[in-house]
């Protein structure tokens, strides 16, 4: 027993180390499906994050600055939606887009567009929920000051977004992070078709299913690296100085 344990440890370390090496090889060689899969992952999750931000940020702004009777209830709904399980979202979108579903005639099932739709539904509540908190933290007096200096509604909202930029970018980062790393929804509505709808997360599931753990780990490392680079870029924007300081 005592001799087996260190041996197992060595194997584990070896697997992780080899996976990292394989990951680098995958990227450096650029062979096979690597770049199309990375490209599709970024395209689908990027588009979904953009659309989710276009939907979620205005909702977050409205909920963040408004004072009305059912505001608390709406915030509760958004916060609940932040925890939607991707598999369930995938299932709903699948049913909607399937031939017998209400949107079946669009013929979007097992396409990147279907994956974007599912990821938008996943990311929009996250963007809206985090943005609500970010906008609500911008002092009301600042909005009054900007308005009192003659800002139009649009100019006022831009000033508020600038002031709450850190929280707003955190909302976008959280939205992107939730969709680039999810597998349940994209695998159901995309189908993990090689060369068509395979993304990094579904590739990992695919190679695990085939017992190719090293390759799966390598994809995992690539996914982590890409997610790190993408969020680093967003964080860079987030960390730039705020508009007002006193």
């Amino acid at each position: 027993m005592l001799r087996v344990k260190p041996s197992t440890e060595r194997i584990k370390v070896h697997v992780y180390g080899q996976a990292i090496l394989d990951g680098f090889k995958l990227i450096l060689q650029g062979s096979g499906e690597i770049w199309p899969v990375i490209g599709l992952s970024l395209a689908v999750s990027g588009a979904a994050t953009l659309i989710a931000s276009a939907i979620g940020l205005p909702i977050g702004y409205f909920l963040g600055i408004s004072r009305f009777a059912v505001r608390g209830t709406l915030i509760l709904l958004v916060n609940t939606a932040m925890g939607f399980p991707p598999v369930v979202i995938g299932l709903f979108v699948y049913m909607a887009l399937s031939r017998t579903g209400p949107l079946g005639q669009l013929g979007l099932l097992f396409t990147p567009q279907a994956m974007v739709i599912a990821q938008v539904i996943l990311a929009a509540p996250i963007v809206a929920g985090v943005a609500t908190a970010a906008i609500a933290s911008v002092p009301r007096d600042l909005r009054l000051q900007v308005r009192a200096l003659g800002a139009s509604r649009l100019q006022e909202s831009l000033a508020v977004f600038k002031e709450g930029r850190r929280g707003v970018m955190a909302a976008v980062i959280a939205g992107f992070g939730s969709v680039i790393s999810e597998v349940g929804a994209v695998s159901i509505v995309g189908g993990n078709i090689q060369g068509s709808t395979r993304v990094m997360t579904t590739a990992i599931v695919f190679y695990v299913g085939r017992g190719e753990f090293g390759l799966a780990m390598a994809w995992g490392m690539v996914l982590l690296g890409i997610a790190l680079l993408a969020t680093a870029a967003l964080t860079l924007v987030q960390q730039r100085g705020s508009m007002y300081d006193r």
Partner: protein
Amino acid sequence: MTDRGETIAAPAVRGTNIKVVYRGRAVVDVPSIGIGSGETYALLGSSGAGKSTLLRVLGLLERPTSGHVLLDGAQVGVGDLSARRRIAAVFQKPYLLRGTVAENVAYGLTLRRIGLAETSSRVSSVLERVGLGGWGDRNALTLSGGEAQRVALARALVLEPSFLLLDEPLSYMDPLLKRSLSLRFAQILASEHVTSLYVTHDQDEAATVADRIGVMREGRIIAEGDPEAVLGLPVDAWAAAFVGMEPALEGTVVSNTDGLAGISVPGAVLYATSDFPEGTRVLLAVRPEDVTLYEAGVDLPAGSARNRLQAVIAESRPSGTSVHVVVDHCGMRIAAAVTRASAKELALAPGEPIVAVFKATAVQVRRRD
């Protein structure tokens, strides 16, 4: 600027039947308020009185539950951007942007897409006017609190507003800075001839900057007029306590010779400069700082102070740097503010006899309804 206390015939800004209701409670209920062209009107009241809410409504920053705002006779509203752009404001916190003083002052002009040349000239001019000439290139975030608030004032004035709102602009300042800045603000507002609404809870600040004062309590304006009348003759017991006085005395004019009225009050006749004829029932009061106390029995110095009341000390308590003393004469209570040194010298103690002396010109008189 109007003379203090002048009646406003055609107000530049008027609010009618302004009511703001939050969660079923009326936080502002003002049937009418008018501010004359070039006038500085101070809204004075304690926290939660509704002053800032009324300011936001008149400044088109908040929609009232009901009521109307008129700017130069025309009804205006929150959604009217052109009307809003005739109004500018300075708040408690200046909220300066990262950047230079000039960039901060130019903020409102940038929102209005004013050209660079005009912006530059207007910014330089207004900085001169607020005493910050040549400060344009300084980093705004290195300024002191007082300097930052002057930049905020410049940022509002550069817009050449028809109506300027000042919402407790000096409340974060220490007393010394507040005194000097309130004087500075008063000078600037007077020279700019801009119609202004100045919200404060500080009566000294209000008296320094305002042509007229409105006292707010629980959403209503309970007194309005020139600073001397409002601060010198409180309308009720709450207003008296707010301005550090005793409630007004009730009396009847028993004589009037060349504007010097003798007014009968319980146990005495007080003299005041007033044109009210004999028989007029009046309310009268005197500011604590206008009352001098002397030990009973001492020879009073010869002088112009006509009113000399034999009284007893009812209460005595420290109030800031002075001592607030209330004296009682036949049930009639008058407050006096004495220095701590004088209070020590007089050995003030409740029940001790004292003489309260004040001039006829210090007595504020109003007809009693």
